């Protein structure tokens, strides 16, 4: 097996007495696109929060390119190459789109002294911001404040912020959440364009997106990985069909 870029060992998280994640052992290899699916409340967002460092793990360990990061704060994890996006847009709403992008790019800086130059003075960052905004077809809107963008555009920005620093691994929490199905497809193509050469771990209810992007699928059910496999294997898996079809096709309908 190739080296795992992101790996967890027996990762658990509980809130008070409620075990939301119990003993998750999971890994994602280089350049792999892994989808995590599971019904509402399965613990997908919590898993991402623990991976990203937004919530502390109750027990278990997390490794990023071989290095243990379980106890590191989110900013240190980012510097080691782990970035994430959020299920609910989590942006700098009152700042311009360009500023949002530049803030994400400067996030890669370790030192505060670097930060003392003019925001727009870094040529490499300016070029990168332009490249990404053009890729997202948002260049023309760069001076608009993010709150003024359409929801779909905000959704794109949400993802672009997490990709700006060229992370090794990116965690996308329901990237198409809240988008109408008609938009979601074009969105998948944009994500694909933006995430080449990156290990992508994402979760989604939208099966079109999952089968469009994923090389491998892991099914999370009540805080445990129920099964893992290629899209083909998972779609034939009896247990998965039971979860998704047996309880009504709630999940497959692409709700968010």
């Amino acid at each position: 097996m190739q080296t795992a870029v992101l790996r967890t060992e027996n990762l658990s998280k509980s809130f008070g007495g409620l075990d939301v994640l119990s003993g998750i052992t999971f890994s994602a290899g280089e350049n792999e696109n892994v989808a995590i699916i599971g019904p509402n409340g399965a613990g997908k967002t919590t898993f991402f929060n623990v991976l990203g460092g937004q919530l502390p793990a109750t027990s278990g360990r997390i490794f990023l390119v071989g290095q243990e990061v379980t106890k590191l704060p989110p900013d240190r994890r980012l510097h080691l190459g782990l970035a994430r996006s959020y299920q609910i847009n989590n942006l700098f709403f009152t700042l311009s789109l360009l500023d949002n992008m530049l803030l994400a790019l400067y996030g890669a800086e370790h030192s505060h002294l670097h930060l003392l130059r003019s925001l727009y003075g870094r040529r490499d960052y300016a070029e990168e911001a332009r490249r990404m905004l053009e890729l997202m077809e948002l260049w023309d809107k760069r001076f608009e404040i993010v709150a003024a963008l359409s929801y779909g555009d905000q959704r794109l920005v949400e993802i672009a912020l997490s990709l700006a620093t060229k992370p090794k691994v990116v965690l996308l929490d329901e990237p198409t959440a809240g988008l109408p199905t008609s938009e979601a497809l074009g969105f998948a193509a944009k994500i694909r364009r933006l995430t080449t050469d990156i290990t992508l771990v994402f979760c989604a209810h939208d099966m079109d997106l999952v089968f469009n992007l994923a090389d491998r699928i892991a099914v999370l059910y009540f805080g445990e990985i129920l099964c893992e496999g290629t899209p083909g294997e998972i779609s034939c898996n009896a247990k998965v069909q039971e979860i998704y079809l047996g309880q009504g096709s709630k999940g497959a309908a692409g709700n968010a």
Partner: protein
Amino acid sequence: MERILTIFLIGISFGSILFLLSAGLSLTMGLMRIVNLAHGAIFMVGAYVGLAVTNITGHFTIGLLGGAVAAGLVGLIMEAGFLRRLYKQESGQVLLTIGFIYIIMNVVQWIWGAKPLSGIVPGSLSAVIGIGDFYFPVFRFFMIGFGLLMAVLLWLFQDKTKVGATIRAGMDNRQVATALGINLKRLFTAVFALGSFVAGLCGLLGAPLMGINLQVGWDALLLAMIVVIVGGTGSVQGTLLGAMIIGLVDAFGKAYFPDIAYFAIYVALILILLFRPSGLLGRPFSIQKTAEEMTQSVTLSAKMPLSIPAATGLRKPGARQRLYRLAPFIGAACVLIMLGPLLPSFYLGMLTKVLIYAIFAISLDLMMGYGGLTSMGHAAFLGVAGYTVGILAVKEGIGLFWVLLPAGIVVAALISAIIGYICLRVSGTYFLLVTIAFGQLLAIVATKWYKVTGGTDGLVGIKRPDLGIPGFNLGPIGFYFLVFIALVVCFAVLYRIVTSAYGRALVGVRENEPRMRSLGYNTWRLKYVAIIISGTVAGVAGVFLAYYYGAMVPSTLAIEMSTAGMLMVILGGPGTLFGPFIGAIVVVLGENISLTYVPDRWPLILGGIFILCVMLLRGGFAPYLSRLYQRFRPEPARITDLGGVPDLGEVPDLRES
């Protein structure tokens, strides 16, 4: 043994009063997340009205109730009329309630005068009982009994009725609660009024311990706040525990370490902050905001950002653009330079004061407007720098400006590094509360450390700066220009900082700290650096203020000084540097005018301005002024060949954010 028992009882009785005082604050803060800094002033209303009613009716019990009803009414008006519209906007609530403090205190002064009144102990409770060799007033037992009774009642109310759970559910999800048929608005108002009622109830009861005077409004706030931080918000048990601990610490401190007793409760506070920042029994005080609420301007700054010019194809602003941007500053500088020799000395003095306050206000703005770190203790940094100058000049006889200025600045930087470290143990509203405590702590140090600081008399006789140039004596005009240069330097430094990537990152922290962390920023360090820079620049203002008055008194460190700075920032426009400068002009001139025409009503006007700013003028004057100025924006020149330079369009102006 008996001595210890007596001290213990003294502590417990004080603790009971503290509990009654703090219960409302803890309730509204923990459950409803309403930050009511006027809580101490409401307590004060209870005391004054209670005393008046007792004197009229001759019944202590009726007096207690009268005070409580009056306090409850004030709470009712505040919540239903104002706070209700500032749901989940802590910064707005903070500023609004500061406004109410000023108004309430000034009205109380209007009615009852500035002289302290003395509390009363009803005849039936005025006996004392002996404990060994010590005497203990029965009234204190009454306090203890009453406090415990109220604790039980409040606990039943909060935990055994569904009120607590309902409010909590309502906070998390208004729609659900409303759908369940609960009238949240009315419930919130009722609970808020109840908290005020309880505080008012103990106004008269606690008068023998707290006194009935105008200072009580601040003192009570400070004590309540320390109790709430130590105990943790949101639970009756936590508040009770915090109150008892503070009561006992105070009593034992006064008995065994009388010299430093004033600091005992602050030591307790600092220890809690360092080792258990969420309080002993606290639920963490944090507000999860939805994306929608975040866009609805959680911050102090203007809701509508300035329209940023459309892309033009220019990477760097052209000469005309640069002139356009600099023109207001050059203009202002020219006016200030010309006014120097022209103004008569009285007005020159006033203008000098404006400039000093402007340095103070822009320094606070870095933290508050850009970093979202609302501080109510900023005067501490100004004050320590001023005191450093005062002590060195008056006690050590050092006159050289080039020694005193750096000394003041360095001390301000050091103190801000220490205070900032402790304050950053907590965030949001707690941060604000802790900054109040530190400001007040330093004011107490200045009052009590007589040998060094001159106590309440302060340090008098600081001469005008000696620049060390032989044969040259700095006159009022020279001093004015010195201050002017200091302002220009401070402005330029801060300007550079806020337009840097660091400045933008600071705004990012203000807007959305969790996301900044996910993006790789050590947000703690960003904030810490902001506090230190901010405190250092405030130190510059402090040095000049010491020279300006020729004296340093403890009030320069105190809360009123800090709130004056806050007002300049919010009035002018937080998150802009020129806004607070305008705010400083308005506030200093306003104070002078009001002192000429309505000498006693300035706090009332001040409070009114606070409330107006919060309710109507969000973002201050600045956005209006810049929108006006943008009409004069020149057409940018177009350059077609960019020569491979990354084209960002015309670089937007970062001064305002």
